[in-house]
């Protein structure tokens, strides 16, 4: 035990604690930012500790790598719109996992494959998890960005093929453990891992991508843990395990909020079949196309309004205008509240982030359970770019793919006003019967444009 080793170990232990404290900070919005600072400090300590390690002999190359990564990372985070956060997270995962995989390759080359049984197993897990997270995350990002078809892509017997691939990978790993010498099979293993990642994500629809990203987060964490075992580095083990546990549990929470089983998300190719059937727009039903002027009149006379934001509000970045509208109505004596559905938008808690961005105070945001009974006593439910989370079919239509998902009781309000661009379906790809309800008024147009117009109309009328 020399002083440097001790110092490094203290750094690592402190880093691990800071990660735990940092994540614990996220249990309340008041402590969240503070928590992130702690986690950042933890990362800094872990890096400092590592740089002091005697096994590091050149720093130039490290500096080059850091610069190459930090600049695009920072730029991306500064310029990206909030709606694209899921893609960004997936992209980050891809690069982090790639790093893990490359580290595994370096280790393998360095020891010419002769790592001892335990370490070889760890390296095997490291590269396979890294590889599949890399390709899986890239595809997830592409699906979310729309550069890649969002619908599930499957082929006959895909699940069997995947399982066979998994078995083969385990067999190769077993052989490598037995061999204890450099072998091209190691690179074959990585190739199969890359393929496996593709097969894992392709059959899943874009609507389920947030869940997939949480699972990939879990894999990325496990890969980092495996690296920790290879290098005998505790902070890697702990940070990786924290992510491994949290990613998994987060995916479970998200599945529960959508009333889906975890297995169904992963293997169910959700959204594949509905493309054909229920998605066809039912031309036989009538809906009420309302001009913005009329809508403004209705709002101006309402005593109570519940705003239901959804993905469309995020897309058109209408949150600030929505807040303006709410302020205007409140000044006229109307009670305005927001109903936040847990899976509205494309990320869990997506609407909370947007409303916080628009500086709407927390006490006006209500979650589903606490506001659902109040719709019945409300003059206007103002649905802004939300669709699936308001679809009454989830309550009664057993054949609907969203059947059983808890929804907001928008249809119980005295009047319903829906702002969206067309009669097109939302993410689940299904018709929303709410739109054909006699008390529903459809106000077509981009959410921000419509809300801006509503503000003008109401402001003019009141003068």
């Amino acid at each position, binding site marked *: 035990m020399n002083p440097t080793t001790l110092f490094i170990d203290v750094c690592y232990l402190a880093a691990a604690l800071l990660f735990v404290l940092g994540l614990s900070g996220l249990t309340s919005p008041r402590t969240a930012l503070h928590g992130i600072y702690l986690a950042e400090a933890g990362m800094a300590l872990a890096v400092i500790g590592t740089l002091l390690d005697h096994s590091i002999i050149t720093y130039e190359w490290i500096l080059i790598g850091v610069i190459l990564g930090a600049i695009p990372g920072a730029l991306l985070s500064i310029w990206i719109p909030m709606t694209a956060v899921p893609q960004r997270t997936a992209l980050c995962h891809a690069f982090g996992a790639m790093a893990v995989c490359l580290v595994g390759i370096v280790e393998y080359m360095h020891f010419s494959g002769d790592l001892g049984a335990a370490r070889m197993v760890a390296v095997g897990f490291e590269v396979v998890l890294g590889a599949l997270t890399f390709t899986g995350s890239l595809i997830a990002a592409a699906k979310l960005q729309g550069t890649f078809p969002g619908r599930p892509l499957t082929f006959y017997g895909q699940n069997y093929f995947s399982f066979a691939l998994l078995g083969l990978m385990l067999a190769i790993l077993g052989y490598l453990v037995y061999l204890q010498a450099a072998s091209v099979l190691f690179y074959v293993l990585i190739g199969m891992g890359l393929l496996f990642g593709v097969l894992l994500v392709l059959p899943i629809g874009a609507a389920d991508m947030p869940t997939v990203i949480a699972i990939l987060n879990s894999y990325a964490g496990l890969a980092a843990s495996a690296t920790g075992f290879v290098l005998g580095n505790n902070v*890697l083990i702990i940070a990786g395990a924290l992510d491994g546990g949290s990613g998994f549990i987060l995916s479970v929470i998200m599945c529960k909020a959508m009333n889906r089983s975890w297995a169904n998300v992963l293997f169910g190719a959700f959204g594949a079949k509905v493309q054909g059937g229920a998605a066809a727009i039912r031309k036989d039903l009538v809906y009420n196309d309302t001009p913005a002027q009329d809508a403004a009149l209705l709002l101006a006379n309402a005593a109570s309004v519940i705003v239901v934001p959804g993905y469309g509000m995020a897309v058109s970045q209408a949150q600030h205008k929505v807040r303006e509208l709410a302020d205007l109505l409140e000044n006229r004596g109307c009670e305005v509240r927001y109903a936040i559905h847990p899976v509205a938008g494309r990320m869990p808690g997506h609407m909370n982030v947007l409303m916080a961005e628009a500086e709407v105070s927390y*006490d006006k945001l209500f979650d589903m359970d606490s506001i659902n009974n109040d719709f019945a006593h409300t003059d206007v439910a103002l649905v802004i770019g939300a669709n699936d989370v308001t679809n009454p079919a989830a309550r009664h239509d057993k054949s609907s793919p969203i059947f059983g998902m808890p929804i907001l009781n928008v249809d119980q309000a005295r009047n319903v006003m829906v702002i969206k661009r067309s009669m097109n379906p939302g993410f689940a790809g299904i018709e929303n019967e709410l739109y054909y309800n006699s008390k529903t008024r459809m106000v077509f147009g981009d959410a921000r444009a419509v809300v801006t117009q509503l503000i003008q109309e109401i402001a003019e009328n009141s003068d």
Partner: protein
Amino acid sequence: MDYQSMMLGLYVFVLAVIVGYKVITRVPTLLHTPLMSATNAISGISLVGSLVAAGGGFGPLATLLGVVAVAGATFNVVGGFWITDRMLRFFKREQAAAKLPSSQR
């Protein structure tokens, strides 16, 4: 890593998984999006491994791979923390405005 260290590492791993589980189940839906990017940033801890690969002097190929790894992991760390920070600032501004309704916790 010998057998005993491996075993101890396993204990560390299992306990850390439990800690992760316990912490995350307490995070309110409200903060799930920042949570995802925060854990994403933390998974960039693979930077630590990449540093060893890039700076360990294992030969030109290893160094090249290492540099790419460092770049990827740094991208992950910087990007992840930055965006989380950006998101949470929205919440921070709210802080004074009002207390969180208990139902949202």
